[in-house]
């Protein structure tokens, strides 16, 4: 586990080792820590804009004792799994734009308005709370549902933003978004007793129905 203060020190240390300015997006527990929803996290989930930025970042953390581990341990056979680097019980999950079945879209990038700069070279943008929920749905690891519950209970959620982003993901070619998100939110509602408006689920499953009908016609 890494606390807020330890994480800040770590990012400053990394920034000193970066040889060019890079921008990363915090999407998971790290983002929740910056939003004040969580006090510590196991894994630092970061999304990079380019593969080159990820390589520069990796080169900076390797001398700090981080080494590659197999992402299948956590993500199984999921597509677009991150590159994972671990030191002790701290772990970096490094994505490049694609986060499993989701794309960290341009609208998500624009919504990340909270910015933290570490040293001269590391600029960390914190994903909006709506997008963290979507990313939690994408990664869907142990505790991701608990985290999503925490976000929904502690922030004001504009459900239309989530539905609109789901539609955007479908337009970007991530056709399973409505299915994935619908079931993720339904599970939150049924199993964890989170207040998810029924109209949101209806809209998502409505999208799914249309997709099925379209496919049927094509067959």
């Amino acid at each position, binding site marked *: 586990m890494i606390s807020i203060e330890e994480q800040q020190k770590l990012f400053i240390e990394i920034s000193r080792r970066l040889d060019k300015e890079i921008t990363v997006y915090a999407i998971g527990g790290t983002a929740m820590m910056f939003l*004040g929803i969580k006090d510590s996290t196991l894994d630092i989930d970061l999304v990079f804009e380019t593969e080159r930025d990820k390589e520069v970042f990796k080169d900076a953390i390797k001398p700090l004792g981080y080494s590659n581990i197999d992402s299948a341990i956590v993500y199984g056979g999921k597509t677009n799994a991150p590159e994972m680097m671990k030191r002790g019980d701290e772990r970096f999950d490094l994505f490049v734009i694609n986060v499993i079945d989701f794309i960290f879209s341009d609208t998500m990038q624009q919504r990340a*308005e*909270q*910015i*933290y700069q*570490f*040293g001269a070279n590391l600029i960390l943008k914190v994903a909006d709370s709506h997008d963290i929920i979507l990313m939690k749905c994408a990664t869907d690891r142990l505790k991701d549902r608990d985290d999503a519950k925490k976000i929904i209970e502690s922030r004001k959620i504009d459900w239309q933003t989530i539905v609109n982003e789901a539609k955007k993901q479908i337009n970007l070619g991530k056709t399973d978004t409505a299915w994935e998100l619908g079931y993720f939110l339904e599970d939150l509602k049924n199993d964890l007793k989170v207040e998810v408006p029924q109209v949101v689920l209806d809209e998502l499953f409505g999208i799914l129905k249309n997709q099925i009908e379209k496919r049927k016609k094509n067959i």
Partner: protein
Amino acid sequence: MKTKELLKKLEGVHTITSISDLLNVSKQKAAYYVCRLRKAGYVKTKRLRDNRRVYNISFENRLGGSSYYDILNKNSPVKIATPKVYRIYGKEPSLEETLVYAIKTRSLRTILASLALFKKIENWKELYHLAKKNHIERQVGALYDLARKFMRTRRMTKRFRNNALPKKEYPLVYIVDNLKSKEFSDIGETWRVYLPFNSADLEDYK
């Protein structure tokens, strides 16, 4: 009450009286709550002229660091509320960086507040380098000439001026989107920019 719950209820600017009213507790208990939040790093205290204490309670306080807005508020008579979170750790941002950031926000009030920085800016080489990187040399030059009309500033180096001055055929650019003043057209023409300020906007600098 849990600290997180307290923070959620009290986020903002308070006095002991406002906290005791809000939570419906005695002033003693309110002071105890402030103490607990301070220990967790969420409280910044300021004193008013009459020696009363005002508490700024926010999660951001715990994260520490500095921000461009803190620097602007420290150096400028025009004060601004932080419109968005941009915190910096592991280095103290320079005045030159702060000026460039302020111009890049394209916000009228932030740019107005940043004019005061010309009183203290000394590293014109760094400023030119940063301005060029962000393609705002002309804006910096025009705002400098404007600031000179209202306050004593450090002198811009000839090298900065010569390098930053545009050719006459360059199109005029906005400093704040779609906002142009009828005043200071001479400065605007020289630097090929639309200045957004009237002299009335600069009252605080007189």
